[in-house]
């Protein structure tokens, strides 16, 4: 996690993270989405591997010990699972990819004529395998990028950047999300309690028997949290003139309708002319409604994350990776999509690879989390 070069750069080295210099959660998400966009533009396994490596390195260098930071491993596992599923489906259902290198042949299940294009069993070629692998790897990389954002940015912090009118709803969502880990903890506790009753802790029966107490516990906890939130002023509103309230409602509802109509216009063949302006108008109206609605909320924000230079660098590096990769895809599509038929060994294109490495910037500029004691 050290800055690569020597003493002269020491003042520029990333500081230790604390509340005041915490990187804006949005910056992490932009960075991760940038990497994900880049991943969606290529099937070159070497480039995908490089993207995963970049994301993994940054996570390793900058994640904290907080509970949400532990989700990265789960996302990696999910990615591997996706690759495996993709392979299995290719094997079982066949794929439209032609190929000459037959690996093995499974007896094909005869299907009636009307299910054209679907095949169960049959020849399985190396080309199909490679194609499925590439495809699966792309999906897996996307997932891992999202996992990286999840591990690096506290989801609750993102809320602080929501418009005032949505903040309370956001708090409710965050509180609701904390119930999943709590329920998991309940399940573990009740399962061990079953052991104390002399009952086996595994099996379907165990799950069924503890299901009710777990739900009961979750319900009780949610009521307790709701009481606590209420007693601490959640949902206090300021008095606003009736006119403002009505305008808010009209703007918000009208804006949403406009967004719907506009999107429909854009998608439908006939309405291309009016679709775009209606969409934009709707968005503006909705934004105005939210801004006005914020006046009802008396909330203030305690130490919101600032969008500073480091946030620009982190977000910018992600955007840069995405932009460079999109440009590369237009400039030299062949390098990003190595041929499958005929089979060729993928090559690492120099410039796209270098542009992916730009994504490592956060590992040097983002504040370093404190060593856990």
């Amino acid at each position: 996690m050290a800055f690569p070069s020597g003493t002269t750069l020491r003042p520029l080295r990333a500081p230790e993270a604390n509340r005041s210099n915490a990187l804006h959660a949005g910056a992490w998400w932009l960075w991760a989405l940038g990497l994900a966009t880049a991943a969606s533009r290529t099937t070159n396994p070497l480039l995908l591997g490089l993207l995963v490596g970049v994301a993994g390195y940054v996570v390793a260098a900058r994640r904290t010990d907080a509970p949400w930071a532990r989700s990265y491993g789960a996302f990696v596992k999910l990615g591997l699972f996706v690759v495996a599923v993709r392979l299995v489906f290719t094997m079982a259902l066949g794929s439209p990819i032609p190929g000459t290198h037959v690996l093995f042949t499974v007896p094909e299940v005869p299907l009636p004529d009307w299910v054209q294009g679907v095949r169960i069993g049959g020849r399985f070629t190396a080309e199909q395998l490679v194609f499925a692998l590439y495809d699966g790897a792309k999906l897996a990389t996307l997932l891992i990028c999202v996992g990286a954002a999840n591990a690096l940015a506290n989801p609750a912090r993102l809320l602080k950047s929501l418009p005032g009118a949505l903040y309370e709803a956001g708090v409710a969502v965050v509180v609701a999300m904390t119930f999943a880990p709590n329920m998991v903890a309940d399940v573990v506790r009740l399962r061990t309690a079953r052991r104390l009753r002399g009952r086996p802790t595994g099996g379907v029966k165990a799950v069924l028997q503890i299901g009710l107490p777990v739900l009961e516990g979750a319900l009780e906890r949610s009521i307790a949290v709701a009481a606590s939130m209420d007693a601490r002023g959640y949902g206090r509103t300021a008095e606003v003139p009736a006119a403002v309230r009505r305008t808010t409602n009209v703007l918000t509802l009208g804006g949403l309708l406009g967004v719907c109509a506009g999107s429909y216009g854009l998608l439908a063949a006939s309405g291309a002319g009016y679709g775009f302006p209606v969409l934009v108008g709707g968005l503006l109206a909705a934004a105005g409604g939210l801004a006005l609605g914020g006046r009802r909320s008396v909330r203030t924000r305690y130490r919101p994350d600032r969008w500073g230079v480091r946030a620009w660098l982190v977000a910018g590096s992600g955007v840069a990776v995405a932009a460079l990769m999109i440009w590369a895809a237009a400039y030299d599509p062949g390098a990003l999509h190595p041929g499958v038929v005929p089979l060729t060994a993928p090559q690492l294109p120099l410039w796209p690879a270098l542009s992916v490495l730009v994504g490592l910037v956060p590992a040097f500029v983002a504040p370093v989390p404190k060593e856990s004691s």
Partner: protein
Amino acid sequence: MIRFENVSVTYTGASAPTLAAVDLEVPEGELVLLVGPSGVGKSTLLGAVSGLVPHFTGGTLRGRVTVDGRDTRLHKPRELADVVGTVGQDPLAHFVTDTVEDELAYGMESLGLAPEVMRRRVEETLDLLGLAELRDRPIATLSGGQQQRVAIGSVLTPHPKVLVLDEPTSALDPGAAEDVLAVLQRLVHDLGTTVLMAEHRLERVVQYADRVVLLPEGVMGPPADIMSLSPVFPPVVDLGRLAGWSPLPLTVRDARRRAGDLRARLAGRAPAPAAAGPTGPTGCSAPPASGSAASGPTAPGAGPGPAGPTAGRGGGSTPPASDPAAPGPTAGGGPAGLLPHPAPSRNWGLRPQTPAPQTPAGLNMPAPTDPRPGPRPPTLRTPAGLNTPPQGAGAAAPVEEPPTRPRQGFGKGRGGGISRFWRRRTDAPAPVPTSTPSPLLAVDALGVRRGRVEALRRVDLRVRAGETVALMGRNGAGKSTLLNALVGTLAPTSGSVLVGGRVPHRTAPQELIREVGLVPQEPRDLLYADTVAAECAAADADAGAPPGTCRALVSELVPGVADDTHPRDLSEGQRLTLALAVVLTGRPPLLLLDEPTRGLDYAAKGRLVRILTGLAAEGHGIVLATHDVELAAELAHRVVILADGEVVADGPAAEVVTSSPAFAPQVAKILAPGPWLTVGQVREALR
């Protein structure tokens, strides 16, 4: 500041009002303590102050509650948020955000304070509560005491005029509780905050109170006056009443000043009134050779006693030879066969000599009912024969014997079974040979790791039949981890655990419950069924016990619980006892309890003490993890103190408990050089 005018609260569906005709006025800047037995509406009264009752809980509130001039009928809880800060019983249910700093700021954000003000107050509050080190920590990773302080801090930041706390120290170790109370006192003295709190552990809080409200009567007055008529009171008040001091002392300091003559009166005596008394006074803390040995056997005599309607048995049991005979009548066929007992747990034959060294006697109010058997002392006082030979005898005893014993005792019904032993009082900590060949529980160099945390390191522990061991130590010291390792829900990373000769985590649950039972911190975790009857039937089936076993235990331990009651509707103490009965259905010789007195009032605690004393007398080994020093003083023969996963003290209760101020019960502090631990001992001695 807070005014109740003829307030009654009736919950929907309840036949009687939970709170009836309460008239109260709490002046500004007072620390007011709410006392009363369980179920008199303390939490309801607190909820009415914050407006959660009835806005949130439902029900009907008659009369008027005003806080700082605002009527709670007209103001919702959120509109009272700037005046009243509320912390409920469970701090975890209180948190809305996930880090300490955000949590402290949350209330202020809701009120719309300016960012600079929020920043300043958060910093102040972090210092006030000693939380500065923890500011960036996720709340889920904090210990119980830290969470409680964060919860209090989170309602302090908006500078409420009134602070309402429901059992703020119940879940805390003595040190953390003192921290929290010190903070409260500072708030009252420095900031003029009005504090209203309910708490069962009066020994911790009563000295801080300016006024005490006694429910259900709803009378308010100075603490000393209320304590003189309250049905719930801490040991210091009990001692004051016993000694006839007036006004009643509320603090150890006050009591010490008065205690000169009491100390003088007690000077020549030792806290071993019943059995050892006659033999000669012996110090409690210095285990005397003869005196204690004599008293030791009392327990054993008692132990086998229940085996029969046997006045004679008590005596008969002392000579080893008679021990093998005991199982004969007791075993009673069926159940015995179901319980294959490995050799190590056979030391039931020994039980007689591992007596409850000083089951402090007097704690037990039921003194009058207790026919202290005149004949007993003689029989008991045959210690010499007991101490050595029985081991051999024990080894020879049939394997099935142990489990049947406790049952027998229970089957007897209160009078014959447990109550007989309530009074058994002996003292002299652990005069028992420490190296009996087969303790119920043998823990050697146990280490448990969770992730990177070493929760336990090289822990050694022996528990013998009839012995009660209290595990103490601050929150997070590893007490619960140790108990979990003993029942096999955690596998040791190093070292070994043997319970009745078995390795718990490798033993099938059905078999393990016949060796060891754990009543977890939250007894509800053990209860799945809709009714008490169904729960009992399930427990019988789980343990392979004859139908009706568990129900009989329940009727014995908590008389008056109807079959069709939902376990949720039981009081805290009844639920604990139901869980205890469920666990005892498997007749485990070793019984573990995790924090059993949390949320119990003094009456429920007294009942629990009597039950556990009776069980120990019947030969159960008991290990209880607790923060409650008074409980440990009343029950434990041995106290083991854990710190950071290591055993830092292990010895006779009287010695360990009195040697450290944090763990000393009030009576020990008051009568300091003397060996007294509980009011019961003193009462007996003065008799």
